[in-house]
């Protein structure tokens, strides 16, 4: 049975992790590669790096972060931030990423999703949607949530998948950082119109919220940043909560360092 994925997300700026990170026993909390290793050892199912600089200098630093992480962590990596073309995707994948999230460029010009899917396969193309509630609908935002587009999120999600997105990273801007739980109606509304996997993002405050995104929101994966970074919820607690709610999770015993469990 396919497992629900638990995905810690690291915001990276010029090659360093931003947003506070407070891992016990981790000397350099700002190094995304050290954090990636720590999450790898705790049994994360996937990691997400978001480049929040999205500048040329930031891009070079990001490639370096991906390469150094992929050299040490044999786990799936999703990378996003400032991706404008299929060629940008190829560069990220070449550095060791498995999937690349695209936002502004694809909202401005959805046809780019077609060329990306053709170039790298739709399984590597993640449509990152940042959305805000407008009554009983949701509006798509771009440029890291700064620019309203007037586009309806549900209709856009459907179109993105038709064109080539293989996964939706769905972030509720209303809930992001609030720790009030995910926007369940949003997740359900997108689930109703797309057949690709959905990653729930924005609002995780505890392990129970993660479980709700799966059992009520029907998400295929849950993404969170601060609750993991600050140790408010460990990956083991997240796994336990999901399992208790009836979701299928990868057993902890099957996870170990490369030198560990496989022996």
């Amino acid at each position, binding site marked *: 049975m396919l497992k629900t994925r638990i995905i810690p997300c690291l915001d990276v700026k010029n090659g360093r992790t931003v947003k506070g990170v407070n891992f016990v026993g981790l000397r350099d909390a700002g190094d995304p590669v050290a954090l990636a290793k720590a999450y790898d050892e705790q049994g994360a199912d996937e990691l997400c790096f978001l480049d929040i600089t999205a500048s040329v200098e930031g891009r070079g630093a990001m490639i370096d972060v991906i390469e150094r992480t992929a050299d040490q962590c044999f786990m799936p990596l999703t990378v996003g931030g400032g991706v404008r073309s299929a060629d940008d995707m190829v560069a990220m994948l*070449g550095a060791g990423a498995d999937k690349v999230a695209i936002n502004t460029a694809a909202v401005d010009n959805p046809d780019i999703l077609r060329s990306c899917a053709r170039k790298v*396969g739709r399984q590597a193309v993640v449509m990152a949607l940042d959305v805000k509630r407008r009554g009983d609908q949701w509006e798509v935002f771009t440029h890291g949530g700064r620019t309203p587009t007037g586009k309806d999120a549900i209709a856009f999600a459907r179109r993105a998948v038709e064109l080539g997105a293989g996964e939706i990273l769905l972030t509720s801007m209303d809930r992001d950082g609030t720790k009030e739980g995910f926007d369940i109606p949003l997740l359900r509304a997108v689930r109703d119109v797309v057949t690709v996997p959905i990653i729930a993002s924005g609002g995780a405050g505890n392990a129970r919220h993660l479980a709700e995104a799966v059992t009520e929101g029907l998400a295929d994966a849950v993404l969170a940043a601060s609750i993991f970074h600050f140790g408010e919820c460990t990956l083991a607690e997240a796994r336990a909560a999901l399992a208790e709610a009836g979701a299928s999770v990868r057993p902890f015993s099957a996870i170990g360092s490369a030198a560990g469990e496989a022996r």
Partner: protein
Amino acid sequence: MSQIALIDYGSGNVRSMSRALAAAADSLGGTTLITLTDDPDVIRKADRIVLPGVGHFADCASGLRGRPGVVEAMSDAVRKRGAPFLGVCVGMQLLADVGREDGDTEGLGWIPGSVEPLAPDDPQLPIPHMGWNELSIDHEHEVFSGLGASPNVYFTHSYVFSPESAADVAASFSYGGNFAAAVARDNVVGTQFHPEKSQAVGIRLLANFLSWSP
């Protein structure tokens, strides 16, 4: 010293595969040289061959055929000399006679069968099949041994290899039906999942491949 040719044809996360093979080789001791190459002479002489592949069947097939002499050299090493071969994801699918992603494209034809759209019984199941799923080992095989009970491995794909003979299916996964997770015939193995992204289980599988004497 053992020489591994990792085929470079502009497709796939060769860096991840190269590092994972190196980690697997380290776990075994001894000296293993992993060469990322499209040089027919290097491929022809290699002790083992690994064919990665990510993305689109037709793109990968044309990329491979676009490197002069590579398919012929792989065939000499694997089919004539018996060098162990591992194909991963689209690199595994290319073993088929034909792939049906956006029209029919000829594969290597080393294991009879075709690559078809993944069609689970339950239409609610998302496509691509993406994430960690359990392997069920159908035939005992050195490369797929010692992985623990119901090992979880990382998949990401929308198409599956459907071999003509069930005897060629080494392991399967369940997703609204049973599908080929791994194929094996003689000195050739292929995995639909990504061992290079499957943490400890994947490294163990790669180490098995590196020490396999078919």
